Every structure is written in C-alpha cells, then in structure tokens.
C-alpha cells in the first residue's frame, strides 16, 4: 500500500525539504547496491565508495544529486517517514510507485506511469487502484477544492 497525504503537516515524521534532509542526514548513511543502482538510473551518476559522484555534468559529491534522486533515497532509507514528492519528476515517481509500504505527501497530481495494480490510500481513508483510481481521486479533489475556493 502506498499512502498519499495531500494536506501538509509540520511533524518530525515528515520530510518536506528533501535537499536539506538528505544533505544533513541521508547522505551520511551507507548506500547499498540497490541505492547505488537507483542513483545510476535516475541521475545517470556513478557513486564512488567515498561518496563522490561522476555525472555527465561533471564530478561532485553525493550532495550534488538531483532533488528528485535525493527524495527517492530519503524514502528508501526512511520508509517510516512521510516524504514530500512534489519535486520529483515522472521518472522518479514511476520508481516510487512501484514500491510498497511507503508514505508520501503531494498536494497536486503529476502525470506519470502508475502500475495497474498499485494500491493507493489517500489521507488514510480513500483506497484506489492504479492510474484510473489515482486520476479519479484527483478529479474529485479538484472539484472539492473549487467548491471550497481553495
């Protein structure tokens, strides 16, 4: 089940500023082979053992990864936290929604590929499946917001 929260909350269990959290916390953790492969897949970056990265844009440190890649690693390393995915491109969202038992925050929909069998729960209440369920939920949410002039 992927939990999506659509109303922002200020809590230590939420990661809203992914760059900041990654730069101060996640980047200091050990990266598994899976995470090294994710970094290659998303940013086309090779992570060296001493946490430098080699990309088409040049050499840097792990903190030079894209915001989307940092968000993904925050989720993988801290699946107990609610992580804001609003800065993720469709390439990263596709990977995120192939995962299970994670919690994300987004205040509006993005167009990306969702697996047909992805089980998604909005705000601890509405459970939908796949792309169609996701899009239908957002349609109703936008109608609700318009009525409330939100």
């Amino acid at each position, binding site marked *: 089940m992927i939990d999506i929260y659509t109303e922002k909350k200020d809590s230590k269990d939420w990661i809203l500023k992914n760059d900041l959290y990654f730069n101060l916390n996640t980047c200091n953790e050990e990266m598994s082979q899976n995470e090294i492969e994710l970094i290659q897949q998303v940013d*086309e970056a090779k992570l060296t053992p001493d946490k430098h990265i080699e990309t088409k844009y040049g050499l840097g440190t792990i903190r030079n990864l894209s915001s989307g890649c940092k968000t993904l690693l925050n989720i993988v390393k801290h699946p107990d936290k609610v992580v804001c995915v609003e800065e993720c*491109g469709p*390439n990263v969202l596709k990977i995120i929604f192939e995962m299970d038992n994670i919690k994300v925050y987004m205040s509006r929909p993005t167009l990306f590929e969702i697996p047909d069998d992805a089980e998604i729960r909005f705000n601890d209440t509405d459970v939908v499946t796949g792309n169609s369920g996701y899009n239908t939920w957002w349609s109703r949410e936008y109608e609700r917001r318009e009525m409330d002039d939100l």
Partner: protein
Amino acid sequence: MKGEKWMIYKNITFKADPFSYDLVFDDRITLVGGDSGTGKTVLYEILEDLRLTNEYKAIKLFNYKSDEFLEAMKRCRNNFIVIDNADILINDDIRTFINFEFSNQYMLFLRNCDGLNVSDKSFKVLKLDNNRITLEEEL
C-alpha cells in the same frame, strides 16, 4: 509595457565548458519541469556566477536556502527571477505576486502550474544534445 510581451531577457546564452547554454523564453513565466536529473540545479548554480556579470545583473536567484524569501521576492522589480525548489517554496501569496507584478520575468523550476498565469508556451524542459543545453517545449 502593459499589453505587450514584457521580457527582461528573451534569451540567455553563455558557455560553461564543456556545455553551452542557449535558453530562449516564450512567455513572461517559464516553468521548467520534466524528469529529475536533467540539470536544473546545475543551471541554477551556474546562474549564481552569471548574475554577477553586467549583462545578466537583472537575474535574482532563490532556492530553499534563501533567507526571507517572501520579503526579498516582493522587493523585486524589473528582474529576471529564478526559483529552484519552487514546488516547496511557492505559496498563494507568491503566486499572486508572480501573476500581478508584471515588471518581472520568471523562470521557475516547478511542476505545479495551479494558480499561475501561464500559457502553453510556459512549459519547458531542459534538453542536452551534443553538449548544447536548451529549453524545449514539454510534450
């Protein structure tokens, strides 16, 4: 001037070896989205130097590290404003400022167009081809 397209920079071009940048803008508000890892923050960091040149001194830069972001933004007039991490920085107040302060031009690294006075020409992605980086229309 009201009633006409008001652009601080119609294009921004420079070299940052091994790359060259040729960014053309078709609207007062440009949203740069697309996949993660396409070089948006790299561009932002290069602009940190570029804005110190005479030609590009109208550029103002904001990201999640900016202090007093709202206040600083609202002081901008006749500027080319670039906002990285715009998805987590922009609120309704900022959107209103962007929409109604016509003297500024904006390049926002942003995926959510809600509430912004954008046109179909506002939506761009960064494209790298043969070491040349351009803004292409988001399909």
